[in-house]
């Protein structure tokens, strides 16, 4: 599957990002490096009309790609997406919001673990797929930079 990243310059540059460890959604970008020596990170620069955020793209050793959408003003991750053969570490990616995931998925009176779709005012978490092909997104809409919508998360 070809993944496109709209609104971003094709001439995205490779760079080693040295972010603060273990923060993720709602905090600074995640440093997967400590736990996953195989990862590659590149920072995708937003184009001129969308300079109020940037995207940190990490390719984990499994091949799974994690994108973190970072507000330029605050340096805070306001959205994240993942796609690939193995789920990323959701605690690393979702940060404190993993508690919401656990609380919501434990409520089901009907068994079923195939899809997660949590839609709350404070957080949206979507997690789906099957073995060898997982993908998901999560975002905090109240933290979106001006002009950003959930459809911009790829």
């Amino acid at each position, binding site marked *: 599957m070809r993944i496109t990243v709209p609104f971003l310059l094709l001439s995205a540059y490779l760079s080693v990002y040295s972010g603060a460890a273990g923060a993720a959604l709602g905090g600074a970008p995640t440093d997967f490096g400590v736990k996953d020596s195989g990862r590659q990170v590149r920072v995708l620069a937003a184009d001129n009309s969308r300079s109020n955020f940037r995207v940190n793209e990490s390719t984990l050793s499994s091949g799974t790609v994690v994108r973190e959408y970072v507000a330029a003003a605050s340096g805070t991750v306001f959205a994240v997406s993942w796609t690939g053969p193995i789920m990323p570490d959701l605690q690393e990616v979702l940060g404190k919001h993993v508690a919401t995931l656990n609380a919501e998925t434990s409520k089901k009176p*009907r068994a079923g673990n195939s899809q997660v779709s949590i839609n709350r005012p404070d957080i949206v978490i979507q997690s789906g797929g099957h073995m060898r092909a997982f993908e998901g997104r999560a975002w905090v809409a109240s933290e979106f930079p001006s002009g950003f919508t959930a459809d911009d998360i790829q």
Partner: protein
Amino acid sequence: MRFFASLQLTLKHLFNYSLQPSAARRAGIVRGVAAVSVVSCLALAACGGGGGSSTPTTPVTPVPVNNTAAMTVDSGPAAASGVINQPYVSVTICAPGTSSCQTIDHILVDTGSYGLRIIAPGILDTSLALPSVQNTAGIAVAECVKFTSGYTWGSVRLADVKIAGEVASSLPVNIVGDASAVFSNTPASCSSGLSNLGTVANLGANGILGIGVFKEDCGNTCVNSAAAGAYYACSGLTCTGTSLPLAKQVSNPVASFPQDNNGVILVLPSVPAGGVNSTSGSLIFGIGTQTNNAFASETVYTTNTVGNFTTTYKGKALTASYLDSGSNGYYFPDSSITLCGTSGGFYCPPATLSLSALNTDSKGVVSGTVNFNIENVDNLPFSISAAQVGGSAGGNTFDWGLPFFFGRRVFVAIENSTTPKGPGPYWAY
């Protein structure tokens, strides 16, 4: 018009396949030999079809075995509750090469995964003493499986796996929740703060029979790297990530059968409005290998390299879509449908919705419309175990869960296998 144009292209593809002694065919033959060390290639059907064997042999028709397992959709094992739309078979596992065996009921039939997983606590007879699989350094292997909302953790061991009359000999299987001390600590990189799904109550099943379009559960991803959240090597009380050769990975038993090994057919009856308390059908092994698994009027939909095709719903192409008997409903994005107050994640429309979507194969040449209904789950009695229900999914997926399988014969062809309609991976219905 588009359909007819597509059909032409499809026939051309099929024709091409029939002419080629392709790599896929050779791979199918190699796989058959490698997986069954004792049984030689006696006939085309037993080796995945096609020519190319270097040893001149007289084709011998193998004695057909019983290739049909009874499949039920019911309220699940006693320890589960609220189960809906979960198809089960019984599976027998034996210590390799022995008659020391255990038959386990209520194993979930899952076309969205690959390989057999048995829940150990309260289910597995540990006196079977299944031998551990070891990595290339000789260290015992365990496996983490990360699902969308939680994980399972357990050992990888060898077992003879028997379903109906079929046998996969000395197959790596996943013993979830293995009580052996060496596997007792779940690595933090596996659990990562999520829920342990490796219980009968959480899975609604005593195990999972992954019979989707691939052979190994991880594949080359785990051959090439010690990917976090997959295979681990365990010694003492510590487990660390390890790479693992394909032959040692937990694998789809069907691909290791000496015959009927190119895929499966799931057959379930229609389910009326309002649902039923239980229903039953068949899990048939092999495609075009016996009189009961030939094609009728089914259409082939190839999948891409990760097992997806495209579903177009309300004008939007959802490119990570798939058929999954292990999903208990139709899961797709539609913010216009009311979500349930009680059953989290499900849709609860005030009146039953009649909807449709278009499935297109991964080559973009074959497509067909599927009509389906969404009933209100919260209005169904808790005793209902099979019904046309669905729920919400993320932006790029249409997950055709078990309700899709009601009233159909659904073919699942394994990657690189040879079938009368060309090589897998594909679905046909």
